[in-house]
C-alpha cells in the first residue's frame, strides 16, 4: 500500500514544478503584456518569406 505515498509524492512534485514555472513566468513579465506576443509570433514566417523572395530575385539576375 505504500505505493500511494510514492504516487502522492510524485503528483505533488509535478504540481509544484508547474507552480514554480508559473511564478517564474510572472517574474519575467510574461503576464504584463497580453497582446503584443500574439502579434509577434506571426512575424517569423514573414521574415523567411522575405528571404526566399530575395533568393529568387538573385537567381533571376
Amino acid at each position, binding site marked *: 500500500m505504500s505505493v500511494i505515498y510514492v504516487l502522492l509524492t510524485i503528483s*505533488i512534485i509535478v*504540481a509544484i514544478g508547474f507552480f514554480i514555472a*508559473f511564478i517564474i513566468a*510572472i517574474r519575467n513579465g510574461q503576464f504584463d*503584456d497580453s497582446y503584443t506576443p500574439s*502579434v*509577434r509570433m*506571426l512575424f517569423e514566417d514573414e521574415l523567411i*518569406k*522575405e528571404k526566399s523572395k530575395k533568393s529568387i530575385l538573385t537567381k533571376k539576375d
Partner: protein
Amino acid sequence: MNQHACFHCGLDASTTHIVYDEKSFCCQGCKTVYQIFSENDLTCYYDLQTAPGATPKDIEGKYNFLENTKIIEQLLEFNDDSTQIVSLYIPHIHCSSCIWILENLNKLHPSISASTVNFGKKTVRVTFNAEILSLKNLVTLLSSIGYEPFISLDDYSVGKKHIDRSLIYKLGIAGFAFGNVMFLSFPEYFEVGEFWLEQFKPLFRWLMFAFSVPVIFYSAQDYFISAYKGLRSKILNIDVPIALGAAVLFIRSTVEIMFDIGSGFFDSLTGLIFFLLLGKFFQQKTYAFLSFERDYKSYFPIGITKITPDGKEESVQVYDIEKGDRLLIRNEELIPVDCILIKGNARIDYSFVTGESKTVSKQSGDKLFAGGKQLNGTIEVDVLKSVEQSYLTQLWSNDVFKKDKSLAFTNITNQISKRFTISLLIIAVIATTFWLIVDSSKAINVFTSVLIIACPCALALAAPFTFGNVLRILGKKKFYLKNASVIEQLAKIDTIIFDKTGTITANKETSIAYEGISLSKDEEVLLKSTLRGSNHPLSRSLYHLLNEHNILTLDRYEEYLGKGIEAQYKQDSIKIGSAPFVGYASETATLNTAVHISSNNKYKGKFTFYNAYRKGLSQLFNKLKQDYDLVILSGDNEGEKDNLTKLLPTKTKLLFNQKPEDKLEYIKYHQSEGAHVLMIGDGLNDAGALAQSHVGIAISENVNVFSPACDAILDASKFNELYDYIKASKSAINIVKWSFVLSFLYNCIGLYFAVTGQLEPVVAAILMPLSSISIVAFTTIFTNVIGRKIN
C-alpha cells in the same frame, strides 16, 4: 494598388509626383523613410499593413535636451558602461507593422541590441550601447523613420515605475491550491468506506490543510485588511462577512481534522477565495494606453533651450528655469513658464489650456502664459515665473485634484452588505440559541455553518463581473471609463454640464458666413490668390472655403502682423483683415471672429466665423432634457448665444465668460444643493470642473493625444451616443440588483441546511461554486444584451 495614395503613409500623393522604386510618395520625408527601409531589407514593413507609416517631422534641435547628462540619467531604466536600456512612449504605434519595424531596429543600427514593443502601452523598450549611439541619436533615428517618441516631464519625475503583480500571484496561488484540494477531497465526497482509503484519510486531510495555509494567509489577506479597516471606520463593507466566513471556514476545518471529526471545508475555502480573486482580476481591466490621471506634467517638455548671457545655447531641465532667464522656444514647442516675448513673431496656440483652437498673435513685449504652443518659427522670451509658480501649474494646486473620488462614495455592494451582515448575525444567533435548547452538542456546529454558507461569494461577484463587462463593452464603443465605480456614479446623474468650445463644437470645423456687397468674379480670384500666401489660420479656413479659381501671381503682397494682408494685381488692390485695417469705421462691437474685405479702398463686407456644432447635438439635447438639467458653461464671450438658443431646448441654461475657477465653484454650489453632476469638457481649463463633478468626461478628437485628468474619455465621434451610454449604466445597476436577488435565493437554500444542522462539506462544495458560476453567467448574458441595445 492605389497610385494616388502615398505608399508610406497613405495620404494623397497625386499632386506631388514624387516617384521612387515605382511607388508614389506624398513628400520627400516619406520617400526617405522608404529608402531607409529598402536599403536595410525592411520593406516587409509594407507587406504587413498597407501604408502604415507616418511622415517624419522636422525635429532639428528639438531633442537637444537629451545631451544633458542629468536628464539622460533620469530617463534610462538601466545604465552600465556599454549597455543602456530606455523605454520610450511612441503615440504612433497602431498596427502590426509598427511592432515589426520597431522590434527590428537592430537592423537599422548595429549598436541597438534588442527592442521590445508593448502594444497596449504603446511603448518600446530599447537596449543599446550609448558609447556608439547616444540617446539623442536614438530618438533622432526613431523620428527619422516616423516613430517620434513622446518625452514629457512626467517621465522625468516618476522615475522607475514599479509594476504591481501581486494580484496575479494571489490568483495563481489560490487557483493552484483550489485544484489540488479538490482532487484530495474527492474520495471523501463519495464516502467510500474501503479500508485502505480510511487509512490514508489523515494524510489527505493534512495535505489539504497545507495547501490552504498560503491561500488564507496570502491570497485572502486583502479581504482581512479591508474588513479591518472597514470595522475601524465603523462601516460594514462586503469584506466583513467575507473575512468572517473565510476565517470561520479555516478554523472550523482545522479543528475538525485535528480531532478527526470530519474532513473540513478546505475545498470550499480555496474555491471561495479563488472565485473572489477572479472577480477582482476581471474588474481590474484598465486601458493601459490611456491615462486618466494626467496633469500638466504629461505635456510639458523635460528640457528647454536657455540662452546664456554670453549668447550661447544650453539645454536645461525645466525645473531649473529661474526668473529672468532668456529662453529659446522653437517652432511647435510648448512654453513651460509665464514669460515676456522679446524677439520674434509669436503665434500661440492655447488650445491645450483653453480648448480654444484659434491661435493668438503676440508682439514683442506681450506676456505669454505657460501651456501655449508656438507655431510660427523661433522666438526668444524672458522668464517671469518659475514652472511651479506659473498660472497653469497654479491651477493644479487646487484641493480638488488631491481628493480621491472613489473613496468618498459607498458602492452598491457595500450599501447592501450592511443589512446583509446584520441579518446574517441575527440568524446565526437565533439558530444557535434554538439548538442550545434542543441539542446543545450541535449548537457550535450550526453557528459556524451559518457563517460559512452565508459567506457572500455570489453577492461579491455580482458587481465586479457586471461592471467589468460593461466597461469592456463601452470601451469597444470608444467610451473609456477609468474604473467600475464610474458606472455607478453615472447612473445617478441628474445634472449635465457641458463646456462649449471643443466639447459641443467640433475643433476643426468652423462655418463661415459672408455679409455685405457681393464680390465680383475678379475680386474673388484676387481674394483667393491673396489668401494663398498667408499662413494665418483664419486665412487658411477662408481659403479652403472659396471656390477653385486660377491662381494669379500677385504684383505686390504684404502681411501686417496682427492686422491683415494687403495685395495688388494690376489695377486692383485688396485689403483683408480687421475692421480698422480695411478702413471700416462703423464696426459695431460684434463678438464673433470676422475677417473684413475691402477692394480698391472700398469696403465690401465681412466673413464671420461661427462655431460648427457637433453632429446630432440638437437630438442629443432633446433626448437628455427629459431626464436631466442641462447647463452650458463656456469660457468664451456671448457671441454664440443666439445660435445656441435656437439649437438647444429652451430650458438649457447658458452661462458665458466662465473662468476655470467659476466653473468649479458653479459645480460645487450645485453639489451642495444635492445635485449629481456630470461635467463634459475637453481642455485643461475644465480640469478643475472635471475633478469636482461626480463624473467628469473628457471629449477627445484623438484619445491618444490629449485629455485632462478625468473619470472617462469619450471619443468625439461618439458624442451623440452619450444618452445611450448613460442609459446602459442604469441598466447595469439593475442587473446587479437582480443578481443580488439571485444570490439571496442561494443563501436561503444554504441557510436551510445550515440552520437544521445538516451541512455536509459536499453540500458546501457544490453550492458555493454553483452560485458563483450562475451569477457570472447571469451577469455576462445580460450585460451583452445591454451591449446589443447600444448599437
